[in-house]
């Protein structure tokens, strides 16, 4: 993805955080991009809410042909994490053998380099690692 420095300054900082949008009307938690209206009930009052960072891998795939900015990371696991707060977020799962990943695996968030743009734009954001008791993130 090609971005300008101006766009990078807008897109980059929010990606460092792990948050979701809480609907002020039906109380549903929505992914961070649902900032205009609630996808469940349509209400327009949503507020940002930080997440604790733990959840369960409820769907996943292994990407063998990545987009340009992820070249060198393949094959990588990317999936849907159902956070303990209930919202489903898309994210990569890293630092694990492919065969150790399965539906229901407990995972926790960790701040990592997400991808390298070809114009020197480096994005950091939340990836997930296996949430093994006692293991370092």
């Amino acid at each position: 993805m090609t971005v300008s420095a101006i766009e990078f300054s807008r897109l980059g900082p929010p990606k460092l955080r792990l948050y979701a949008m809480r609907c002020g009307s039906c109380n549903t938690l929505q992914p961070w991009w649902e900032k205009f209206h609630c996808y469940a009930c349509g209400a327009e009052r949503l507020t940002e809410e930080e997440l604790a960072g733990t959840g369960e891998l409820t769907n996943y795939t292994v990407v063998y042909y990545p987009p340009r900015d992820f070249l060198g990371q393949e094959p990588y696991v990317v999936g849907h994490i159902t956070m303990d707060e209930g919202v489903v977020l898309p994210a990569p799962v890293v630092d694990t053998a492919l065969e150790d990943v399965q539906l229901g695996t407990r995972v926790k968030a960790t701040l990592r380099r997400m991808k390298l743009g070809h114009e020197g734009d480096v994005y950091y954001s939340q990836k997930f690692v296996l949430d093994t008791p006692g293991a370092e993130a």
Partner: protein
Amino acid sequence: MRVGVLGIGKTPHKIQHNKSLRDLIVEAGRTAISDAGVSPSDIQMLYVGNVGSVGFNYENSTGLMAAHHLGVVPAGAVRVEAACGTGAWALHLGVVAIASGLYDTVMVVGAEKMNDLATVEGTSVIAQAADSKEEYFSGLTFPSGVALTARKYMQTYGLTEEDLAHTSVKNHHYGARNPYAHLRFECTVEEVMRSAKVADPLKLYEVCPMTDAGSALVLCREEILKDQPDKPQVYITATAMASGTWYAVSDGLEDAHKLFAEPAAKAYAMAGVSAGDIDVAEIYNSFAIQEPLGIEGLGFAEQGKGWEGAADGSTWIDGKVAVNLSGGLLCKGHPLGATGSSQAVDIIEQLRGTAPEGIQRKDAAIGISACRGGPGAVGAIHIYQREG
């Protein structure tokens, strides 16, 4: 509603390094104009379906480019874009333009020139059809987004990877017989299973190739075609569009089903036919799992059973309904903006009885095309009927 199909045209679907986007537009467009027996100056409005010329070809204003080089100036011309549903949306606008009574003759062209870029660059352009700034920020691609749907479907309905592989076997059986298809070889379940992994559980033979192609239709008022009884009497009798979620996280199996089921119900009512009347169907299958989803959405099978027809023969050429006799996107390839119009052209050939040997359904009289985009965001249904 009845809109006459006066002419159709298409280019081969393949990697065509010797042709530019405008070459594909003009080749398909001129073929349709010639088939219609009209001249470019008879065209009163031009709808050009093209998804990614800015990304694939570093050029823009595809509608205006097409109008100039097809010689339809001063008729109005516009580019239409709705992800993978683009060609079907261009067709919808053309059909509506005639049905409104405002125009007598309009033209629809879909075209995409994808192979000027390497696969890794092309994948990035395609990913922009989803939310590349947010959801796809974390490494999703179209194949991997749909792979998540495939896993969900397989988990929910207890499908094995071998079960799904039958869909590719069927498509390749017919694709091998379609001279316009990109991939022209047959394969077995074992070969599908052995093909390279693309995005678990989807494998190479379950994924469409990136293709260069164009396809076009000249549409007219019903009376204009009726007055020319020597021409094949094929009419578009229904058009229905829908939108769904733009995000994979909110694209559940029910959502993916409704994306076709709801517009299909409207289209059947509009045409006065039912699912059981359909002889031939072209169903969007850029990834194998989307064919069973489409079969179910159109009402040809219950949810969870759409894959069975490829295994038991009921969606083969002599089956209850023949699905994707063109070889589908799995073999034709998926020239994004040209896919919807290509599905229409292939169904119309079936109804005219001019499909290539080995893929012509006997006495095909009623056909349907179903195009998906986004992939959960666009549902587009058209019904076609032959008279006489």
